[in-house]
């Protein structure tokens, strides 16, 4: 069973949740090039390792929240309220191998 740590409800079965998607940064509407929009639409990091995502607790508190999950082991190491948590900085922190801060707080930027 995969346990998803909802920031409100605590660890619950994954069947209560909907996976919204990998956290991606929306390009600036006024200045974005077609290439940037294409990347935003279609390209994901799709890593075999830690990734930052948005989840929705549809059969619970109905909150959207951010979470950090390992895509090979399906283990979560933290989650936080508010879907968007400055993804580029968070992803950069992931890529740089910055260790997790305490659970429930957004990644330090």
């Amino acid at each position, binding site marked *: *069973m*995969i346990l998803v740590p909802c920031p409100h409800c605590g660890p619950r*079965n*994954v*069947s209560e949740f*909907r*996976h919204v998607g*990998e956290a991606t940064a929306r390009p600036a509407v006024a200045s974005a090039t077609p*290439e940037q929009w*294409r*990347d935003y*639409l*279609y*390209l*994901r990091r*799709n*890593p*075999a390792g830690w990734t930052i995502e948005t989840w929705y607790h549809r059969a619970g508190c109905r909150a959207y929240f951010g979470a950090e999950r390992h*895509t*090979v*082991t*399906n283990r979560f190491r933290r989650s936080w309220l508010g879907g968007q948590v400055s993804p580029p900085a968070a992803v950069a922190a992931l890529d740089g191998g910055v260790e997790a801060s305490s659970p429930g707080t957004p990644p330090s930027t």
Partner: protein
Amino acid sequence: MAPEGIRLLGRQRDGWRRPSRYSAFGLVRHGLGRAEWPRAWQEHDLSSGYDVVIVGGGVHGLATAYYLAANHGITNVAVIDKGYIGGGGSGRNTAIIRSNYLTPEGVRFYDRSVKLYESLSADLNFNVMFSQRGHLTLAHNDGSLRTMRWRAEVNKLEGIDSEVIGPEDIKRLVPFMDVSTDTRYPILGALYHPPGGIIRHDAVVWGYARGADARGVHIHQNTELVGIETVGDRVVGALTNRGRIATPVIVNCTAGWATLVADMVGVRLPIVTHPLQAAVTEPVKPFLGPVVVSGTLHVYVSQTDRGELVFGASTDPYPSYSMRGSLDFTEELAGHVLELMPSIAQLRVLRQWAGLCDITPDFSPVMGVTPVGGFFVDVGWGTYGFKAGPVAGEAMAELLATGTTPENIAGFDLARFAEGRLVGEKGAAAVGH
């Protein structure tokens, strides 16, 4: 970018040898004698250079290698796999073959694959156990029935045996099916596709491996690609855990790891990797003829030649590289299967597993050239890769040998995402994604 110069690769290797024929006479001779059966394919030391390095020893990679050697005489080829051949998607799928797609292009593409599968045992001199027992896609609502009528007409125009049938005919084909009207999702009809069926997927992998090996292709198992060397924007070498290989051409034929391999040369693929779970029951006497698929119930069932029932479902609703099964899946699957066939409630599930499916935004593969010269892709095969193995291998081999993209895969190019030409094949998979 045009892969110029690849046309010159067709030099023959020394030491071309014929594979030993498998025959009834050979069986008797080996049965009576003490001689060991010759190995179906050989192990080789890693050469310092190959004309083509194919990453991924599944049906796509091995078929590409086989057709490169058999159709184009290009034999200085290595197929490398980080595990054993056929250990990924090729050994984890539910082995269903069909061509009853929705668009004429899709129908023609998969029909070519069915035709290649039909003659594969003879071509490879290896019994791949293709059992064309028929394929039923059930309709549980008016919308599905309408789409099936549409598919049947497109199929018939393309010369494919395909027809919509009613509950009485379904009952005749599958007597154990509950076609009553007091179920949660009553069966209104089905798209019946007699040439569809199942195959021994391991045998397909082994047959292609044997055929490619006999023509001089080197198959390297336990050989993991760890990096790709480029000079300018061209591939010059493959770095593996067993050493460096100089090569002008690398073909990415992986499933599950496609984006990770492409990341090595900075080619970004619009792919997200999802697991797809399957399960198999204990073997019982033959009672189920055709393959039965229900999109509404997200399940497909077939009975193997050994008597086991093989179940598959749609992909898990979140990306993952995990290949473990889950209880949620088994519970849901059992509920849906019993809705169709209540009488098998006592059957026990023996095993469950997951395979990795590379899902693209339009549920169609990504095949052909990339912005990096000499780096080719045959990836993004989602939930429909196994049935396309032969035609994909044939087309990729033609592309590598001639430098020209064959017409039947031209629409699957990587550039379509940038240029807004997504493929509209809604019949890509039998169940929803």
